[in-house]
């Protein structure tokens, strides 16, 4: 009993110490498809509790980089991933830890929402139950908490048992965000999360990200330059499978070093 609690406390202590600095560290990451190389020798560190924006023209490998981080590249037989990706000091490409527990460290928000085929309530409780929580009251409490966290509670509290697909696309996207947060991740992976949304819904998501970074590390993929300017604490510019430049938004946007980034800043909307 006692020893268990103590070891739990110690573990938490260790976890918080080890995650103080860079929560994600990528070394020499290469991703190969059957016929070509999608990502070329990626080296990155991602700062904790900041918004890191992955910027670059479409097809440059942003989505693939994001999918490598939570091992969704496993779904594609043709993809080979080599190198190291450290998530909180676990090398997820070589660890023996089970994949679901690694993925639960990250919440994924896709280009468009994919609600689970169940009610609004169950969309949130699904992940909570996966964490092994069975207590009904605790689940109900958490569902409310996370729906509030994404500002959806007032809109849906009287229709929690309706199917999630009855919500608007913007609401669905916030539901998907809440669903991801309910699994208590450290990191949010967002792949062009506003590209299917209207301007108002996009604004809501952007504002949510600003407040969420207090507790989460956010990695945001976008090809919208203005969104990057609005949100980024740290910018990674990718081109044709490579990281070309990275640094503070101020440096990258005001004094780009490479020709590629200069061109992108001029042409890319």
């Amino acid at each position: 009993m006692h020893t268990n609690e103590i070891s739990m406390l110690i573990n938490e202590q260790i976890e918080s110490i080890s995650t103080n600095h860079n929560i994600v560290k990528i070394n020499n990451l290469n991703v190969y498809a059957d016929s070509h190389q999608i990502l070329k020798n990626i080296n990155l560190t991602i700062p904790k509790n900041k918004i890191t924006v992955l910027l670059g023209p479409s097809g440059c490998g942003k989505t693939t980089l994001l999918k490598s981080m939570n091992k969704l590249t496993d779904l594609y037989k043709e993809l080979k991933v080599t190198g190291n990706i450290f998530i909180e000091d676990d090398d997820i490409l070589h660890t023996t830890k089970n994949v679901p527990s690694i993925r639960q460290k990250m919440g994924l928000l896709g280009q468009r929402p994919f609600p689970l085929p169940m009610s609004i309530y169950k969309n949130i409780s699904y992940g909570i139950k996966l964490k092994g929580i069975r207590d009904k009251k605790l689940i109900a409490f958490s569902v409310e908490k996370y729906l509030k966290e994404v500002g959806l509670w007032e809109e849906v509290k009287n229709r929690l048992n309706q199917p999630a697909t009855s919500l608007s696309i913007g609401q669905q996207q916030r539901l998907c965000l809440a669903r991801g947060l309910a699994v208590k991740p450290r990191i949010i992976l967002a792949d062009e999360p506003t590209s299917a949304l209207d301007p108002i819904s996009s604004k809501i998501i952007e504002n949510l990200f600003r407040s969420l970074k207090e507790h989460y590390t956010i990695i945001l993929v976008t090809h919208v330059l203005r969104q990057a300017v609005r949100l980024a604490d740290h910018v990674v510019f990718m081109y044709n499978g490579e990281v070309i430049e990275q640094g503070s938004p101020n440096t990258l946007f005001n004094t780009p070093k490479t020709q590629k980034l200069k061109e992108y800043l001029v042409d890319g909307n």
Partner: protein
Amino acid sequence: MKRSKKTEEAVFKILSGFATYSLIVILAFIIIVVFVKGFNALTWEMVVKTPKGGYYYGGEGGVLNAIMGSLYIAFGATIIAIIIGMPSALYLNVYLLRHKKTQNTIRYILDALWGIPSIVYGAFGFTLMLYLGLNASLLAGILTVALLITPIIVRTFDEVLSTIPKGLHEATLALGSTRTEMAFKVMLKQGFSGFITAVLLAFGRGIGDAASVLFTAGYTDLIPVNIDEPAATLPLAIFFQLGSPIPEVRERAYAAGAILTIIILTVSLTARLFSRQYSKSNIN
């Protein structure tokens, strides 16, 4: 240019509309013929009584033996086919998600199985039955029909599962689901209406097929009370009575056909309603 497009559009609309409506007319025509020809024989007695002595010469009785036999066989076979077919379709779309070649080979084999005529299943079931030392019985009929309809369940459900967008797989796995959880908690629900369609198709094929039960289920005037007893079936009841020289008996064949049609329509409607209700509260 513009005008020819318009003509093309009009011609296509008429042709395709004609094709669609002629199908509906044909269906209505079949149902009407069966009901009109069987109308005189379609009595309550027909539904609630088994054949009495002299029934096949126009004597008293009904086809309750065949109704019950068909229901037993079709439900039994459908349950077995669901138990085997539902996980198979999920397996194809979850565990073989990355293995396109294996997936396609299995689909090809299932399509071939679907296409094999039911008389071949009947002959195979017959051989298997003799090999196992079984008699023509409810059990042999159920097993043979299960073989016949399992590929239908797998492939029909599989077709629907395969249209589920990759994004939903990714979202589900990203939450930390295992593949099994993804299969049974998400894919099954997302594809539920397709699953119902699959079960209905299979049930309809199973209850309507004569050749697969001809040698395997046998025929009897009694309602089977045990799984090793022979069982009559509606398709065979139709077949035997239609061959009779006596007009009243031939009318009974159509009446039996009408009963079979009613059973299929009832089961189909109930399942659709159930499925719609389910989807309303879950998907949309």
